[in-house]
């Protein structure tokens, strides 16, 4: 994308070509620039696994991975993710976390589950890369510490961006802890 020499507002409803890489496949869409990544995935690519909960970054149901990092798809414009590798729940094919969620009753209605699982994948990668959490920093205060054990308290803090209105948190934390081990 190059910068237009003259930037002028265009009429409402104009679209532009947006190339996304989703679950390993290149997808080209004609989108208005205000379309969120969440709406692009659900409404334009038919990938309904990513859920729209609050649509304002408060619930985490829309969590997907961008180049392996978890983000809220509702709070970003699809066009900003041109060329980035997006992974949605449909692209999480090994099933390890899914099976652990079933074993531990990590859901009731299931609406938050795909966001929980994508978030957990991103969270485990952050932890493996030595990223601290608020719990790590306050309990240890040690900048050398890069392998804090994934205790229940650590998992709850690191997963706090994913709400579950059924309250299946105990099962969710157990499932993630089992996969982390």
């Amino acid at each position, binding site marked *: *994308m190059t*910068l237009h020499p003259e930037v002028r507002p265009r009429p409402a409803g104009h679209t532009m070509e947006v190339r996304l890489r989703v679950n390993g496949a290149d997808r080209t869409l004609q989108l208005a620039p205000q379309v*969120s990544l969440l709406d692009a995935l659900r409404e334009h690519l038919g990938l309904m696994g990513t859920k729209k909960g609050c649509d304002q970054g408060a619930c985490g149901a829309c969590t997907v991975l961008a180049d392996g990092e978890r983000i809220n798809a509702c709070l970003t414009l699809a066009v900003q993710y041109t060329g980035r590798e997006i992974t949605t729940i449909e692209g999480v094919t090994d099933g390890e976390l899914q099976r652990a969620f079933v074993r531990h009753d990590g859901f009731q209605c299931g609406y938050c589950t795909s966001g929980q699982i994508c978030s957990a994948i991103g969270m485990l990668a952050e932890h493996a890369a030595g*990223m601290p959490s608020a719990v790590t920093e306050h309990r240890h205060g040690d900048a050398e510490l890069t392998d804090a054990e994934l205790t229940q308290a650590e998992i709850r803090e690191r*997963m706090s961006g994913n709400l579950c209105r059924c309250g299946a948190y105990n099962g969710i934390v157990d499932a993630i802890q089992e996969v982390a081990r």
Partner: protein
Amino acid sequence: MRSFAYVSAPDVASAITAIGASPNAKFIGGGTNLVDLMREDIETPDTVIDITRLPLTGIEELPGGGVRIGALVRNSHLAADRLIRTRYPMLSQALLSGASGQLRNMATVGGNLLQRTRCAYFYDSAAACNKREPGSGCDAIGGFNRNLGVLGVSESCIATNPSDMCVALAALDAIVEVESVRGTRRIPLADFHRLPGSTPHLETELAADELVTAVELPALPVAAKSRYRKVRDRSSYAFALVSVAAALDVRDGMVSEVRLALGGVATKPWRAHEAERILLGAPAGEESYQRAAAAELSAAVGRPENEFKIELARRAIVATLRALDGSVA
């Protein structure tokens, strides 16, 4: 969401040229606040200039011991940075106490500086709000204001600045570097945000055509022993009711150096100058901390729903300082 034109800027020069040519344009970084505000029709730019490709993602050590942080460094990366964790732990803790893992992966340092209030009346288009619509009044002052401000408030606005990061930056004497077609300016963080006064819609000193390019932290040895303490309604993923960023050095039982700033209680990131003045050279201990906290909060204006914040802030200040001097865990 309303339609807008979108462009992606390849470099800083293009970005500031583009915004200079388009008075109703907005830069977009992580989008975590702007996308939400556009969806609510509170921000209505006709052009959105994507700056996420600009090369402003470095964290560099400066000669003399300071650190320069690119405006597009994301909150999660800054919090995990070893220089920040060892030299300015309060900043790492402040960042990690803010938002969620997902949002910290998206949100940038520059965007965090410009984060707008979460006052419910600002978001509610049916309510009067001088910040959203200058001159319309303030429904928060006589309304549900439990989470709103007690320091730096005016007759026009009591909305709190929601940032955790900025509270630490205020304590650390950070400098904000901004660029426009007119050149580069360096603005102390303490002067970057404005008090609401009678113009609460004017929130910062940043001109409409200026781009935040970096934040610089000066060398500050006392900050190696610092803390960010955040008090909120739930233990994670919530805005602060009260927060305290503090650094403390005690020599021979006396406070030899101190930095103190407050969040969640004020209309801007609140550097507690009055408390620092009282603490400096005073005996380290509960009595001095109580006196300093009371002095800082003497100007606070509480309302029936939020006056608890004054007492809560007093206790949070004292507890944070005691934790730093080693008298409590």
